């Protein structure tokens, strides 16, 4: 038994986790203070602490991943270790799904329950009559019970282009992956580079869309429940696209500069690809439920 067993690598002591814990502390404590300072126009150290925390986190991630990559390149990882990584990444993506589920839940609740109830649906006729008799339920909610008005973001135009861009990026990423598996390094580099460019284009158009929303449509974060769900859902999605693009960029640099990954051993690449496809699926749900319907 023991002669057949591929040793499961248990790393020695590592300074990175405690650095990461300090980084998260600085981020949380800094952000907590910064939010108070910025909303009350006070000066303080919160923002600096937050930035220092983010810098420390990046420093930690670089150091930690460098160790992991070195260990992997030195052949310390067994097949069993590879399975651990894969399962870890899958469960992490599941946790991300649940994070978005909370915001989609809020969206559906507002659309199906909260807004109609405010207009007297169900047994809430007296609520509507007493509180906001003039309020009319609609989605997108362009005039809130409190009277804030806004305009809806149409799905044609930028959101549609962005959908097409992300869908193509998923296809290019798939071809990058087949390139890697068939040892066609040229195809891998080309397709992966293209995916990252498409991701960047998506983010650029998202910024253009936000500017358009704020300047032309008067659609803002505080424009009632429609603006709230619109910006938090697309905003968190955009943040995930950014992280996914950085993740892919690191893979690209490892491939181009260091010639990492082989046709059979490329977990990091695969994890980045899973993450990208996940972000893509979230966007499709967003496009359908936030923009079109």
């Amino acid at each position, binding site marked *: 038994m023991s002669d057949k067993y591929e040793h499961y690598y*248990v790393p020695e002591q590592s300074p*990175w986790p405690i650095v990461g814990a300090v980084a998260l*502390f600085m981020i*949380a404590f800094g952000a907590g203070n910064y939010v108070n300072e910025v909303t009350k126009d006070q000066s303080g150290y919160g923002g600096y602490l937050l930035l220092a925390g983010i810098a420390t986190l990046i420093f930690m991630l670089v150091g930690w991943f460098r160790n992991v990559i070195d260990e992997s390149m030195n052949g310390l990882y067994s097949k069993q270790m590879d399975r651990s990584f894969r399962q*870890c990444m899958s469960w992490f993506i599941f946790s991300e799904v649940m994070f978005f589920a*909370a915001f989609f*839940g809020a969206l559906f609740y*507002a659309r199906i329950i909260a807004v109609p109830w405010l207009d007297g649906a169900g*047994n809430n006729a007296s609520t509507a009559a007493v509180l906001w008799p003039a309020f009319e339920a609609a989605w997108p909610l362009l005039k809130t019970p409190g009277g804030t008005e806004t305009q809806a973001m149409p799905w044609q135009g930028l959101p549609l282009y962005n959908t097409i861009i992300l869908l193509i990026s998923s296809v290019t990423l798939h071809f990058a992956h087949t390139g890697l598996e068939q040892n066609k390094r040229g195809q891998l580099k080309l397709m992966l580079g293209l995916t990252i460019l498409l991701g960047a284009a998506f983010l650029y158009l998202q910024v253009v869309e936000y500017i358009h929303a704020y300047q032309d449509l008067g659609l803002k974060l*505080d424009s009632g429940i429609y603006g709230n769900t619109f910006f938090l859902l697309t905003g968190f999605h955009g943040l995930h696209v950014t992280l996914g693009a950085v993740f892919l960029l690191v893979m690209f640099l490892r491939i181009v500069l260091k010639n990492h990954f082989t046709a059979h051993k490329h977990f990091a690449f695969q994890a980045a690809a899973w993450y990208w496809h996940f972000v893509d699926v979230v966007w499709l749900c967003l496009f359908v439920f936030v923009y079109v319907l």
Partner: protein
Amino acid sequence: MSTVTTDPHAHAEHEHHGPAKGLKRWLYTTNHKDIGTLYLLFSLLMFFIGGAMAMVIRAELFQPGLQIVEPNFFNQMTTVHGLIMVFGAVMPAFTGLANWLIPMMIGAPDMALPRMNNWSFWILPFAFSILLASLFMEGGGPSFGWTFYAPLSTTYSNDSTALFVFSVHIMGISSIMGAINVIVTIMNLRAPGMTYMKMPLFVWTWFITAYLLIAVMPVLAGVVTMVLTDKYFGTSFFDAAGGGDPVLFQHIFWFFGHPEVYIMILPAFGIISSIVPTFSRKPLFGYASMVYATSSIALLSFLVWAHHMFTTGMPVAAELFFMYCTMLIAVPTGVKVFNWVATMWRGAMTFEVPMMFSLAFIVLFTIGGFSGLMLAITPADFQYHDTYFVVAHFHYVLVTGAVFSIMAAAYYWLPKWTGHMYDETLGQWHFWCSLISVNVLFFPMHFVGLAGMPRRIPDYALQFADFNALISIGGFAFGLSQLLFVWLVVKCIKGGEKATDQVWEGAEGLEWTIASPAPYHSFSTPPEIK
């Protein structure tokens, strides 16, 4: 259950180094036993900090009228007591037990991702420092109850809310990483031959708990984020004037919150299922049904959240749905209690401290379960809602349930961890003092609650005075009794009768095949399970 075929000591690791020296050992460690110890000690510290807050609450409620603290400070105490006990004491204690025991129980070299394991732990002291520090801010700490209902936490909360939100965020990151580590360890690092249906029940219950954690902690992150933007950035998720709804907060919170209460009790079921067979000297009755019962409880936990909200506005059909789903949970829970009793039936029983705590758990948790059933009845809940009856219910399931199981586990595995037997006499003293005082503390809460005393108030009507004085005396006695436990643990670490490898005559499982104290690295090569 599993049988080990090989020589007990063959797999203990000898070639590797031992622990590093000094503070670095604890800061940089990747060893599941070190990290388990850190979790357990941290949890004990938080148990006393949260307990001290409970003492403030009980001191204020000793007599009617406002005597000791301001109402605003009283609210901060109830809020932070709840947050600390849930996220700082009970959850880390179970994670610590998981860290110590799961690799030894399934024959794994360590947790699947040892560095991430260290990160999960070390986030916690920082997260709770932020939460505790917020108590000293101008305007005080969070005072909206541990459930932070909107609009208490949005429109009416103080400046500490942002710190509360971000500290919950990083606690959540810690919990999710811890849970991923547990679930991957169980799925991927079981020794050859250890099939799922041969795993000890503690491993099974943690497997399901980890799944629940990964599913609901992100939802908690989502809801605190909405609280943050509602309070600071003008969104109106929980404000009807903007088209939102305060009830939406309760739906999202309890979608997290109800699975969360099972997160705090399923590992307890696993512990009791380990201890009762040992001291009954019989295998566990109905192993498979225990596994299925645990899974059913976990699945049902996603369908019952709105039973916390019967009085806050829902269509009648929804109230009935949530009522019946909640009552359904009594069935798998009843299966478990039946199996524990059936395990003891005609067993050769002895009554060491772990068994005493387990027996108390079975009786008192069942009382908490029954009061839960009473609360599940929608029309009756209109009377019980937000009274001390609710406080009595969840303290029976969390103190005499979760905390008693943690105590039982500590006594049961202390000899394996330290290599010394604990002081049995002192342990029995700790048990009996705890048992009597905890019932003096929580049982009369049922009566004052049914008589209409609301929860979360610093003052009350005169007719509740006698019972409240009694409750407070029980509370102080229970708090003091726990000092016996600290004394006992210190004594046990320092010395005592040498423990054998098996420790308990009837104990079965891989962790009892390795030396006591467990070597720094156990099972570098997996044992074979027949």
